[in-house]
């Protein structure tokens, strides 16, 4: 029984893998469905409401999925991630682990396993949204969707690293989850007010929409910063956890 196997078992036996699948899978189904049937839904509310809607395109099917993934999906990731990564939440379990393995050896499998599960389930949801969009609306350029999925996956890995950092600052799982979400919102708001937006990880959220609409790849800056920040956050988390007393 290694710490890697422990994390695989945690995902499986705590049903957290299925929670992620349910969240990303359902918003993957709902994205294209919403776009396809939104005019009919609005029409049932009255003629005036339909008049205010911009015309829906197939790209909106995938964009809608990303939009929901950023909100509902990231919230689910925050709780699932915090439950695995905040291993000091129960001091007795922390004593068991910390007196037998280094913080680095404990944290890295947790980070990597959660990140892999989140990326995998997000990708499943994206595949569902892509197929749904194709069946209900129009088939999109698969290249843009794949690259967009990779870029958003990088953002999700960054989200997991943020959870790691917050877990090194506070102990309780709900606090770790909510403060992580709060931190991500602040990060996103910073991008709105200044010219630094192209450098921020949150820039990757809109990459799929941009690429599927035929835009050029212009995300090197945010990709570089996201990679560097993810590694830095992990390193800081390990350092902080190493010196934290139980």
């Amino acid at each position: 029984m290694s710490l890697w196997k422990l994390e695989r078992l945690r995902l499986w036996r705590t049903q957290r893998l299925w929670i992620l699948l349910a969240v990303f899978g359902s918003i993957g189904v709902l994205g294209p469905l919403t776009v396809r049937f939104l005019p009919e839904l609005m029409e049932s509310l009255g003629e005036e409401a339909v008049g205010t809607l911009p015309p829906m395109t197939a790209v909106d099917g995938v964009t809608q999925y990303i939009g929901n993934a950023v909100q509902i999906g990231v919230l689910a990731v925050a709780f699932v991630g915090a439950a695995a990564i905040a291993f000091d939440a129960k001091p007795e379990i922390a004593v068991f682990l910390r007196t037998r393995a280094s913080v680095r050896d404990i944290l890295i499998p947790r980070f990597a396993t959660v990140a892999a599960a989140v990326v995998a389930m997000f990708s499943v949801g994206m595949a569902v949204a892509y197929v749904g969009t194709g069946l209900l609306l129009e088939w999109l350029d698969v290249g843009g969707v794949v690259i967009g999925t990779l870029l958003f996956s990088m953002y999700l890995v960054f989200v997991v690293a943020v959870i790691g950092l917050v877990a090194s600052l506070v102990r309780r799982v709900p606090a770790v989850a909510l403060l992580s979400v709060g931190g991500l919102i602040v990060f996103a708001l910073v991008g709105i007010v200044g010219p630094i937006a192209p450098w921020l990880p949150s820039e990757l959220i809109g990459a799929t929409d941009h690429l599927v609409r035929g835009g050029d790849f212009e995300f090197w800056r945010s990709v570089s910063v996201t990679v560097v920040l993810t590694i830095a956050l992990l390193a800081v988390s390990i350092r902080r956890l190493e010196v934290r007393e139980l």
Partner: protein
Amino acid sequence: MSESLVSTSAVSKRYGDVVALDRVDLAVPQGSVYGLIGPNGAGKTTMLGILAGLRKATAGSVEVETASVGVLPDTPQFDRWLTGREVVDLSRCLVDDARPESKVDEVLEVAGLTADAHRQVRGYSRGMLQRLGLASVVVNEPDLLLLDEPAAALDPGGRREVLDLISALRGTSTVLFSSHILDDVQEVCDEIGILTRGEMGYQGSLDGLLSRYVGTRYLVRIRHGHDDIIRVLEAEQWVKSVSIGTNRDIAIEITSQSEAERRLVGLLARSELPVVSVVPDRTSLEQVFLEVTR
């Protein structure tokens, strides 16, 4: 005394203005079962945390002469979805995965958990968790075991099992365990340290501590003639006070052990009263503990 496996020199620990440990010198002889006793809040858990490397001393130095240390918290917990066997196997793999896997089943057997080894921990009782915790420490055969209140809050059966497990470790490992259950300490420990309000009140052998207090009082039981003998006893210079207890035993506080040993029995014989028994008052660890921590 054997060489110390664990020693601290003037170790202090402060949490803000609160002094949890105040210049504590601890010496745990190699191969001993050492009981760290003290009332709640005396600093026992803090001391164990420092020795385990989970907390840092504010001042002083700590020397642990081995890297092979097993730690058991007072209420062991594990991921509830793991089985008992997986917990012990995880412990084995984290410390030394070259150790044969059969060792896992051996310690589960010793801990009396073989029948429940493949059940998830969520269904374990408090006593079973305690025994599982001990098994997960013992599987790695550490040189030093740090056990925090290992038998606290267990029913008599569970307590018996845990004490037997600790006794079985004597000679193979050095055990340092904290407790406020004095009967447990008296039963399994060779050496003790009494912590009170963060300070070490006494440290040494259990026998040495008890012998300090033995002999300061004798209990005499007679059929009748209590007033007569009290009068005789009170006239002796080596007698500090005489009183009659609730069970009509005569309690004689003495000032000189040697005088009492030479004269008491003869004095009783000369009185020609019907003497049932003459015994030095048996000093319990509890009495001594209360004396030291007063």
